[in-house]
């Protein structure tokens, strides 16, 4: 765990700060400033450029035939879970229809080969010859491929090929060769018989031709036998390689199962969608290729991610927390179709949908973090500027306030004026002065709940008399003003920076909290 630095190393805040500073310097219409602020990157936007590796991973994922059948929403969700930004995902979607990934072409070629070899078993052995040199080449290329689904298909294809070729070789040896031999013998015998009636000249030629044909057939057969033997040898070599690969995969799979077992041992609360539990497991079985380098800093969860992706499409979720017995009874009842008997028919529709909203009896109180905002920030100029800028967008009244805030010469006077309005709980003048010793941070302007107060701000001369009356009203009504002061004092005494006296601080606070709580509850 590292404490957040006040000046984060990333480039993101620097540009917006300069842009916001420029915007600050322009004393323009608040609306023009608003446009500038929206275009300048806020800190809540991802400013990284799209990463090419991630986009390529996504393209490969989207090109997978299994993925193509799934709804687009699930594809997007999967990529988002892998940490891709919107830009990267959009880029990948843009690329997928155009791309022609190798996987699909080799797969289709291999499928074609399988089909052709299966169909050609009974036909001329020459076709087997033709398929054989291609077969080992394709299978070796498959062996060299990186992605796993190619291995899976490659193993299948290689298996089919070897089986087909072995069958073809065996069939050829067992059936064709004896048939050929018997056919040759029959021809030779026939020729001998026929040759007696024919001229002697033709006999040797026919016999020679037959013999030559027989010889060529025999040599062809011998060649075929040799090539089939070579083929079988290469197949056995392939088998050996494949077996090695399979053993390695088995080792990996056993590691994964042991990890999964370890995770399943930990018992975890189930998700709360108990009313209708639907789980999407469509894409969970797909393996994400990261080639050993997940993200720049993303190694935190790389193991758990790989566990999840390699597991079969069964939930690897942490196991469900033991639910109360009556909960299981009620679930069982509902699954049987029974309705629990304690449910009443209640009409909870609004009796008067046009009921006017009530008048608030109390003004909104400042939040503890709004009171102490200036003190707790040391170098956090950007976010508070962003907050004031963000605020100016929706309220033109406050736009005037913003303009005034940015005139440093008038700062102290305006702040002291506002400081006289305790209903917004602004820090006292003394606090502001200590604040001004550091880089000046404008306190967040309060929300405009009372338009008369906003009008008062605009007219400084009249505000003093108005604020006095407001002060009287509120102080008499509110006990909790004291509470705010106590809170303020305790916060001023404490520190909100990293590390430090958290334990001692809590010791100081706990007794006073107890006193306050008990006095309030009494």
């Amino acid at each position, binding site marked *: *765990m590292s404490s*957040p630095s006040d000046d*984060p190393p*990333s480039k993101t805040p620097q540009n917006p700060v300069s842009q916001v500073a420029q915007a600050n310097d322009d004393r323009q219409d608040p609306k023009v400033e608003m446009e500038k602020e929206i275009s300048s990157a*806020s800190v*809540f*936007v*991802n400013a990284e450029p799209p990463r090419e590796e991630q986009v390529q991973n996504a393209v490969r994922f989207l090109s997978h035939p299994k993925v193509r059948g799934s709804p687009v929403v*699930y594809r*997007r969700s999967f990529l*988002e*879970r*892998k*940490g891709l930004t919107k830009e990267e995902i959009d880029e990948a979607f843009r690329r997928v229809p155009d791309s022609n990934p190798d996987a699909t072409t080799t797969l289709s070629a291999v499928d074609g080969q399988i089909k052709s070899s299966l169909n050609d078993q009974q036909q001329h052995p020459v076709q087997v010859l033709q398929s054989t040199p291609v077969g080992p080449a394709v299978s070796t290329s498959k062996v060299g491929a990186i992605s796993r689904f190619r291995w899976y298909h490659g193993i299948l294809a290689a298996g089919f090929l070897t089986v087909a070729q072995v069958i073809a070789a065996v069939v050829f040896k067992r059936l064709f060769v004896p048939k050929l031999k018997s056919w040759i013998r029959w021809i030779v015998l026939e020729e001998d018989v026929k040759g007696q009636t024919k001229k002697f000249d033709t006999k040797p030629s026919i016999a020679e031709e037959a013999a030559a044909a027989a010889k060529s057939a025999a040599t062809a057969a011998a060649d075929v036998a040799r090539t089939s033997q070579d083929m079988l040898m290469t197949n056995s070599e392939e088998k050996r390689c494949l077996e090695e690969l399979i053993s390695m995969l088995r080792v990996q799979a056993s590691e994964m199962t042991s990890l999964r077992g370890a995770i399943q041992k930990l*018992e*975890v609360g*189930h*998700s*709360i*969608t108990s*009313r209708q539990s639907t789980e*999407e497991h469509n894409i969970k079985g797909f393996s994400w290729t990261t080639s050993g380098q997940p993200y720049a800093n993303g190694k*935190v969860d790389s193991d758990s991610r790989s566990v999840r992706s390699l597991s079969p499409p069964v939930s690897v*979720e*942490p196991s469900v927390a033991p639910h*109360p017995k009556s909960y299981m009874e*009620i*679930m069982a009842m509902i699954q049987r179709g029974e309705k629990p008997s*304690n*449910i*009443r028919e209640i009409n*909870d529709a*609004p009796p*008067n*949908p046009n009921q006017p*909203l*009530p008048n*608030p*009896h109390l003004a909104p*109180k400042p*939040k*503890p*973090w709004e009171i102490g*905002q200036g003190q*707790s920030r040391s170098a956090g100029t950007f976010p508070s500027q962003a*907050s004031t800028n*963000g*605020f100016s*967008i929706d309220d033109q009244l406050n736009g005037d306030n913003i303009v005034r805030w940015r005139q440093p010469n008038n700062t102290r006077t305006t702040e002291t004026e506002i400081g006289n309005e305790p209903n917004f709980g602004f820090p006292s003048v003394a606090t502001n002065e200590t604040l001004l010793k550091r880089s000046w941070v404008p306190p967040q302007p309060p929300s405009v*709940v009372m338009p008369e107060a906003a009008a008062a701000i605009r007219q400084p001369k009249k505000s003093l008399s108005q604020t006095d009356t407001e002060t009287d009203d509120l102080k008499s009504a509110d006990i*909790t003003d004291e509470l705010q002061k106590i*809170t303020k004092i305790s*916060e001023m005494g404490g520190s*909100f920076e990293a*590390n430090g006296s958290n334990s001692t601080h809590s010791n100081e*606070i*706990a007794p006073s*909290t107890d006193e306050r709580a008990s006095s*309030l509850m*009494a």
Partner: protein
Amino acid sequence: MPVFKTPFNGYSVKFSPFYENQVAVATSQNFGILGNGRVHVLQLGPAITERVAFDTADGVYDLCWSESHDSLIVAAIADGSLKIYDLSLPPTANPIRSLHEHGRECHGVDFNTVRKDSFLSASWDDTVKLWTVDRPTSVRTFKEHAYCVYSVVWNPRHADVFASASGDCTARIWDVREPGSTMILPAHEFEILSCDWSKYDDCIIATASVDKSIKVWDVRNYRVPLAVLNGHGYAVRKVKFSPHRGSMMASCSYDMTVRLWDYMVEDALIGRYDHHTEFAVGVDMSVLVEGLLASCGWDELVYVWPHGTDPRAP
């Protein structure tokens, strides 16, 4: 410490931002599976007493107090509607509004603390909707999540920024001025049930997940969490940053405990309360009283106690 027994199973508890001795509790019958619901408004004191209660046809999963009107409560109902209750009117005149647009259960609701005029609802129909109290229809719908949105939280300093936590394992940061989400945090490998912004550093956000952990993120460098808080035995149901101490947060879990953490400290766990006898599903820290905690659970009990004391002490 006072305890209150509700007739139904607790789902959410929230302190009033106006009155330090008022607390609202959302409850659902039959664990929220099927049945009625009830919103309780409780008065704290030497004992907790019920000020008023409102019955609903379906379970109440969450509620929030209005930041602009001290007597308004917005409740998220399991039938997908949002109901607004006015405590200044008798129960027979309530609710004053019923906003029904979500297609599925409403699971979270949060009121804007900066502008104080709008609120967000998170629903199992994968969307987040933006509403204002005076309008009968939603102002905007944010549809990007691929699964149930469990929680939505406004940024305490930026009036237009909010975060959502979803069952699609991502947390998203949105700006109401932008058409879609501005950041996607693939925060966990499992469903994210809750998120909350730090009150003192507007770029820090915590996410709580089914994977039993709470992760603290800085949105400026969101690839790596600032801290991973492990310790809960089951899914963490809710996480809430302290309104008074910058790095402190409270969480409640299906392991029946409420824990307090300080993510800046080496050993982050600074408090552990195991007073509940069933899932602890709701926790809140008072904005007006420092250190005051409230929790509710499926054991139908609501506890309110100051940090450092035993919630079950008489």
